[in-house]
């Protein structure tokens, strides 16, 4: 009964959500093995070996894994799978893309996006955009599970010294080819892990107006989020989208500005500790989940909000 966790990384460092997935994996079983598939990825393997919850790191280092393609990863994973009762990874675009391909090859039904580990075979997961929670029991021999990262704390990154074992590469695929990645660089905290998120919706009216949001976000050291309407209207790039089909965030403070609060948006933020809504429509559904609602025109309220924040000399970082 061991858990094989597939690490997400960029060949230099491990992606933060892998640490959340490691926490969840160790709740399933303490014998957590992490599989690092990469190219020149020694540093990644070494850093994961220092995570105390990890018992063993399996490293597959080959130039065919320079760029991540699910078609290339799967043969390695299925080959190792017979030694494991669980195969897990985080339920972000990496894991969502990869895990079902693995599950189908192993002929098992996958449990997606779990928010709670109830026992080794029973998990809780949200359905219907988080409007219901299902408790499900997997009866498959190998359990393929993806983990909602924001539902689990990240594992500590030092204190461990797991063995690193090298393993063989699988076959390189011919059927798919990586072309390019357009990463959006930002100095702000990452949306998925930020303590404070300030989000704008259709009410922002233009991309230019998002500077009102970024000014507040800078002051609060916050990440910037957006509703689908704002992304579709081209105000901001897609990696900012919060919701059922975007990212799920659970910050201490979520400030929704000019966002009506459609079911699909709430799915991505309603677990936030404190929710603030600034909207001129007093009937907007966002007010039904907001701890603090301000019915006001955002173009008046945001500059004033920044002004008031500037008066505070101590803002938590």
């Amino acid at each position, binding site marked *: 009964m061991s858990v094989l966790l597939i690490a997400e990384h960029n060949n230099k460092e491990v992606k933060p959500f892998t640490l959340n997935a490691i926490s969840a994996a160790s709740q399933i079983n303490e014998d957590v093995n992490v599989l690092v598939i990469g190219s020149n990825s020694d540093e990644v393997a070494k850093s994961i070996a220092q995570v105390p919850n990890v018992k063993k790191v399996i490293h597959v280092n080959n130039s065919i894994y320079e760029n991540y393609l699910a078609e290339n990863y799967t043969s390695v994973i299925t080959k190792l799978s017979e030694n494991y009762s669980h195969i897990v990874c985080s339920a972000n675009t990496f894991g969502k893309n990869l895990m079902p391909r693995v599950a189908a090859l192993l002929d098992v039904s996958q449990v*997606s996006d779990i928010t709670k580990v109830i026992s080794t075979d029973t998990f809780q997961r949200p359905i219907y955009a988080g*409007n219901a929670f299902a408790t499900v029991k997997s009866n*498959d021999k190998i359990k393929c599970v993806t983990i909602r990262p924001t539902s689990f704390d990240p594992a500590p990154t030092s204190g461990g010294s797991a063995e690193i074992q090298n393993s063989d590469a699988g076959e390189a695929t011919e059927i798919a080819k990586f072309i390019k990645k357009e990463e959006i660089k930002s100095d702000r905290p990452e949306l998925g892990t930020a303590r404070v998120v300030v989000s704008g919706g259709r009410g922002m009216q233009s991309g230019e107006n998002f500077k009102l949001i970024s000014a507040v976000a800078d002051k609060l050291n916050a990440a910037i989020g957006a509703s689908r309407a704002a992304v*579709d209207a081209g105000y901001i790039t897609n990696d900012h989208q919060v919701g059922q089909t975007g*990212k799920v965030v659970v910050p201490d403070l979520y400030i929704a500005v000019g966002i009506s609060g459609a079911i699909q948006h709430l799915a991505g933020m309603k677990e936030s500790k404190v929710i603030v809504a600034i909207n001129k429509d007093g009937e907007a559904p966002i007010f039904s989940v907001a701890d603090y609602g301000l019915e006001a025109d955002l173009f008046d309220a945001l500059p004033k909000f920044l002004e008031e924040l500037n008066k505070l000399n101590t803002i938590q970082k």
Partner: protein
Amino acid sequence: MKILVAIKRVIDYNVQIRVKEDNSGVVTDNVKMSTNPPDDNAIEEAVKIKETGKAKEIVAVSVGEEKAQETVRKALAVGADRGILVKVDGIVEPLAVSKILQKIVEKEKPDLVFMGKQAIDDDCNQTGQMLAALLNWPQATFASKILVKEKSLEVTREIDEGLETIEVNMPAIVTCDLRLNEPRYASLPNIMKAKKKPIEQFNASDLGVDTKSRIEQIKVEEPPKRKAGIKVASVEELVQKLKNEAKVI
């Protein structure tokens, strides 16, 4: 070129769902049902490719209850040429759906299979990837842009960090993101014409696929309710509350 589009009938995205009192599931009787939204993007994209002359035929397929026929009919009204309905009652897991679709693909031999990236009811985000695995085809998931080439597709994918472009050889599976296109509405004449288009029907058992659940649904519950909040009168009051009451800034 032939494109198969897989579509699902789900509770309409605007409906505030209700959990059954016995916690066995969600109330679906007398609830408005529609096509799963990203599946509409999948149909739209197939129709657009056909309009450029690069595809000859679009086959819409749905796996579900008898009533899923309406969903197939809607796809026909938007531009699919014919439909297939594989009848199964109750919840069918993505693994079983992908096995059914595999059988249909083997019969129909399409060059491409399009579907939505996830269904908004089970939120699994699995079927396309599973079907790709079973067929040993490449997968392009969360597609927001598709460029059809001679024997391949160049697909831009929505990923956490931004965008990624990959090239997949045909035949391939593409799962569509909401950002891929703006689905069109079916016009009344097209809805009338769609009534004459053929829909072939099968039972899952005819195809030799075991649809028994591997995952037991033990219970379905409502999420914990959030405590009602308050409305503040001014920005000053908001900042003061966040500072002194909620202590988050």
